[in-house]
């Protein structure tokens, strides 16, 4: 290279330089256009739901046509949300397939102990609902929601991460996670320490179906929002079946011989949809101080006799 800069890139003539900047700007704009669309869509319309993620970006509606691409092999990674509506996982009156509504087809196969334990629970919803002030729902005071209730009440967005050894599910509700071991280990033969979210192992049944067994669950948790009970014998099976690129089905079976005479499917092919990669899972945390404030200001006030 000499003093005149030979060998260095030659400077553009003035006009060409401006053109170059224009082209560069246009390319940058076109690249950023999709994300700009998400970032600037701030319109709010009362009375109609416009679904937003945690960064207030509008989430596109699910396409009506189900022509999704084939799913990747042995891969559940991504951000998933109940579909067709993001609130379809609320399950206020109990597990989706067995709501506590008094209908004969939704009666659970309780053992005598199961029925007795259920009646000792005082939920806010279902046929055994009591007024707010009389609830003994552990989640009302922000005890951990636990598993499987994390999937049977207020199941909102989840994010799944995985590697060859384990799969992790992050839940919007309560901002908690579970680790599911897929390294070939077996469930603990003896539970030395029950957990709110249990001990989970999983394996691939085929390239699109991952089956999880969970046990060692803390007996203080409820199975669902209607106060369905479980014992230390509870074994939960989840079957995650990836139908295609966009749709994941979840089937959840309860097996607890102390409380139920036979296994029952709390969820049966419950569908979740893959969300855009930019989707931010919002906070939905049970804060003890907020819950106490609510219980004092609203719940207790609603239950108290009006002062004359």
């Amino acid at each position, binding site marked *: 290279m000499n003093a005149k800069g030979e060998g260095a890139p030659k400077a553009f003539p003035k006009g060409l330089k401006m053109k170059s900047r224009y082209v560069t700007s246009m390319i940058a704009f076109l690249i950023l256009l999709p994300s700009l669309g998400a970032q600037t869509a701030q319109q*709010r*319309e*009362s*009375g*109609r*739901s*416009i*679904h*937003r993620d945690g960064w*207030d970006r509008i989430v596109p509606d699910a396409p009506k046509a189900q022509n999704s691409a084939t799913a990747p092999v042995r891969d559940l990674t991504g951000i998933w949300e109940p579909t067709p509506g*993001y*609130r379809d996982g*609320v399950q*206020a009156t109990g597990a989706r397939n067995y709501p506590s509504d008094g209908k004969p087809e939704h009666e659970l196969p309780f053992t005598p102990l199961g029925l007795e334990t259920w009646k000792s629970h005082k*939920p*806010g*919803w279902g046929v055994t*609902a*009591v*007024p*707010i*002030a009389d*609830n003994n*729902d552990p*989640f*009302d005071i922000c005890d951990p929601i636990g598993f499987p209730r994390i999937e049977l*009440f*207020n199941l*909102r967005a989840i994010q799944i991460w995985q590697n060859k050894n384990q799969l992790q599910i992050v839940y*919007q509700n309560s901002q908690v996670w579970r680790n599911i071991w897929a390294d070939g280990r077996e469930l603990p033969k003896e539970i030395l320490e029950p957990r709110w979210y249990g001990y989970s192992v999983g394996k691939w049944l085929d390239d699109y179906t991952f089956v999880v067994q969970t046990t060692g669950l803390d007996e203080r948790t409820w199975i669902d*929002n209607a106060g369905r009970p479980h014992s230390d014998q509870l074994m939960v099976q989840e079957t995650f079946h990836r139908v295609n690129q966009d749709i994941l089905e979840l089937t959840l079976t309860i097996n607890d011989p102390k409380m139920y005479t036979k296994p029952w499917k709390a969820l049966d092919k419950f569908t979740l949809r893959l969300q855009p990669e930019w989707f931010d899972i*919002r906070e*939905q*945390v*049970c*804060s003890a101080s*907020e*819950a106490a*404030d*609510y219980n004092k*200001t*609203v*719940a207790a*006030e*609603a*239950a*108290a*006799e*009006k002062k004359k």
Partner: protein
Amino acid sequence: MKSRIGVLVFASSVIFLRLIPPTFAHHGNATYDNKTVTIKGVVTEWRWTNPHSFLKFDAKDEKGNVVQWIGEWNNPSTLINFGITAKSFKVGDEVTVTMNGMAKSGANLGRVVKVVLPDGQELSMGNER
């Protein structure tokens, strides 16, 4: 402040046809009836909290006394999708609050279905709860 406090404009006992069952978290409905009441008042506090948000506001009763009301609403994760945010109300806002499901105890407390702001803007979840 008192001069800005609106009067109780409408307090009827209307049976409200619910198109979609309410889904107020895990606390349930057993404490509430199915009456609809509309009240005009002034915001004293807007609590954007879990499990439910709630709006505190002052209104005058039939005798002209200032009474405190509480309007319970859904959780932030749901309200945000209906355009209702932590900044929707500020202290001193004059609001008209429609509630469906009033406390059976007789407390000045109900479940919000719609709030109208001074500029006429309506905040609601439509037919959803």
